[in-house]
């Protein structure tokens, strides 16, 4: 209760400082709109529906791309961790491509897929897959071999071992890898939406883009806020329960 109160106070103070700065008229209101005008933009955008439809479009792209990325990345990571051939090929590829900022996929995606949903998905998937592969790979590799040995003496066969020993044992790495994959996916999607006008759907990135075109600073800041809040919520909803479980079971982190 006290923690929530302090957090609320902190954010209220932040907005107050912002309002004070606007009031002091150091910068022109075109560059720094007041909290009130940003609020006004957000409420009007919410009322005419653009905000929700744009968030919906963005989230759909993100979630679909992310889960496809996971579905590809997890098995690939298991593969690179267990076969030397896969390690020398896919493993090296993943390591290389992971260092590539995911925005760099945008030009290629446009040439391959044109101004379509496919291009967006492609960018998100490329942002997700490689970090998930790497995290799964390290997760599996760092498992103490004693777990697998103990399981074998209890009669656990290869398939059973993958499901009930290797995967849960690497869970801490998997979760942090999935989290990293999520962050990359989110970033690459925003980059793609800002730079690419796509006819099939109007996402948050596009709103940001048009905010700039129209010099509508209240829109730019409002949308940025929405993006931050969505990122925060995703973290709390998708990952926090898992992390709490990990802390409780493994006894890591704060107690």
């Amino acid at each position, binding site marked *: 209760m006290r923690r929530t109160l302090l957090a609320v106070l902190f954010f209220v103070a932040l907005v107050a400082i912002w309002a004070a700065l606007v009031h002091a008229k150091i910068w022109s209101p075109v560059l720094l709109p007041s909290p009130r005008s940003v609020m006004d933009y957000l409420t009007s955008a919410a009322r005419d529906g653009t905000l929700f439809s744009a968030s919906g479009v963005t989230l759909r792209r993100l979630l679909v791309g992310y889960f496809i990325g996971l579905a590809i990345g997890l098995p690939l990571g298991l593969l690179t961790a267990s076969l030397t051939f896969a390690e020398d090929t896919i493993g090296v590829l993943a390591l290389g491509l992971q260092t590539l900022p995911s925005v760099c996929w945008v030009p290629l995606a446009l040439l391959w897929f044109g101004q379509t949903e496919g291009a967006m998905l492609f960018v998100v998937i490329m942002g997700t897959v490689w970090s998930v592969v790497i995290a799964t790979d390290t997760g599996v590799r760092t498992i103490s071999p*004693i*777990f697998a*040995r*103990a*399981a*074998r*003496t*209890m*009669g*656990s066969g290869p398939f*059973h071992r993958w499901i*009930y*020993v290797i995967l*849960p*044992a690497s*869970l801490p790495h998997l979760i942090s890898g999935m989290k990293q994959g999520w962050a990359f996916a989110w970033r690459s999607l925003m980059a793609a939406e800002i730079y690419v006008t796509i006819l099939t759907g109007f996402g948050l990135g596009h709103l940001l883009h048009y905010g700039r075109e129209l010099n509508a600073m209240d829109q730019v800041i409002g949308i940025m806020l929405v993006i931050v809040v969505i990122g925060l919520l995703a973290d709390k909803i998708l990952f926090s329960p898992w992390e709490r479980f990990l802390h*409780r*079971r*493994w*006894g890591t982190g704060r107690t």
Partner: protein
Amino acid sequence: MSLQEELQGPPPAKLVVDHVSKWFRQKRQNVHALDDVSLEVEEGEFIVIVGPSGCGKSTLLDIIAGLEKPDKGRVLADNQPVHGPGRHRLVMFQESALFPWLNTFGNVMFGLKLKPDLRNRERREVAKFFLRLVGLEKFMEANVHELSGGMKQRVALARALAPNPRVLLMDEPFAALDAMTREQLYGDIQQIWQKRRKTIIFVTHNVREAACLADRVVIMSPTPGRIREIFEVDLPRPRDFNSIEIARHASQLTAALKGYLAPEALSVE
């Protein structure tokens, strides 16, 4: 199968280690871990293996368990050659090797779930029975990291006993524990072994522990790992760890061990 039958279980197994040799090939050198080791273990016998570090005790247990393959020779369990690990020969490792992603109960259930001919309700009953046996029924829901070292070893013991293996291979299971807990566990182990008739092979560095637990003590020496001598310990059970008799046997074992050590290693103990 009824719960009662499940708790009684099949008879203990006879083990034969038949001229087993094992090398570990490394880049620099080959380690000759076991050299022509032969051992016959009767059904329901309690064998303790002692020997200095690196004499191949763990390797021998791994081979009996089927986790490692011998380069020469073979292992027979009930006259059947051992080709891989199997439920009937369970290993309790030096570290507890409990699974941190499961709670205490889940750890004990792991091996039971791999036994096909049990109903889930029976599995839970059996798991509870063994947690009660090691005195941890109050900690069923506890996470592994919330247990003390001794409690972890007791959970590991319950996990090893629950699937009712006919052979229990224990690799210095109590090395990391304090003396008090250890002595309590000696009592528990002897009781379990007597009540539930198992063949136990138990590795230790502690000669007193060996004298207290064993029917026969196998003394090994290193480079290459060999069996040098087998002592019978013919004392009534249950044995008291602190009795004079145990101390006398232990000093005999120590003397024998020192005799087989290379002169430069003598100062270690």
